[in-house]
């Protein structure tokens, strides 16, 4: 009898550990007009650290100076990476956005609005003088947590 009782409590402990792996996510102080959250709180899930993603070929220089085209190509590549890892755009919790001209921020915010359906990630914008390729306008380094 005692063994059954102790066993059931041990089982309860194991269940507790298992449920701790389930993802809990909370968007702290979302700023919808900026398409970002002040912070994103997460517990559980699987972390995915992505490299800085940029627009690149197929056609060299086809995207020269075209922010919308580079934005789309960059997020297409991020999507390929996320899909390969078993995630989606909605799993992104944080993005470091490096741009050669921060005047594109309003355009960036407008375009990201369509990507995130369940809440916005935390976003940091930084203007840098150069990126890896001379024609690059934007590089995005995301962190995702996959359920």
């Amino acid at each position, binding site marked *: 009898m005692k063994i059954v009782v102790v066993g059931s409590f041990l089982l309860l*402990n194991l269940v507790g550990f298992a449920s701790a792996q389930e993802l809990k996510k909370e968007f*702290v102080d979302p700023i919808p007009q900026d398409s970002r*959250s002040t*912070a*994103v709180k997460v*517990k559980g899930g699987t972390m995915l650290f992505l490299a800085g993603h940029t627009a690149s070929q197929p056609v060299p220089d086809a995207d020269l100076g075209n922010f919308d085209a580079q934005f789309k190509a960059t997020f297409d590549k991020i999507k390929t990476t996320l899909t390969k890892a078993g995630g989606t755009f909605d799993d992104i919790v944080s993005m470091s956005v490096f741009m050669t001209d921060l005047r594109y921020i309003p355009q960036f915010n407008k375009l990201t609005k369509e990507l995130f359906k369940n809440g916005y990630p*935390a976003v940091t914008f930084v*203007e*840098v*003088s150069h990126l890896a390729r001379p024609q690059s306008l934007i590089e995005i380094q995301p962190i995702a947590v996959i359920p």
Partner: protein
Amino acid sequence: MRDLVMRYLRCDLRRLAVFVSILLTSFAPPISAQEREMIIPVPQSAYSQAVKVKGGTLLFLSGVGPADEKGVLSAPGDFRGQVRAMWENMRRIMAKAGGSLDDIVTMTVYTTERRWGEIFTDMRKDVFKSGYPSSAFVEARKLRTPGAFLEIQAIAVLKE
């Protein structure tokens, strides 16, 4: 006889203690205590080379700068004033998320004024009470709020 009774009681108490402790662990949160270790602290610049942490809840923050809640720049042209305003904003956000500044484990400091880096690290000594987070210090050409000298992108691990 009295000895026998005592021995029996002690034995039973031991069993009870084991039972109660198992019971207690069942109700405690699965990851009850957070383990945290600062690796190679650099106190003169108020950062650690690494922070090792196990357990807790992750918090990813957007870049925090010296702008008020309406996005208006605090202390234009005043580096120290902007550093103070930025930490005040950070403190408010951490509280809102259910934590404190001491929960920050790493930060990337972007500044347009690298030459004032020492002022920044000096002021950071008073911010953290229980060990310094890891940190990188990078010069940026511009930041989100026009006129801002610095913006910090932080990751925290809350105790809960």
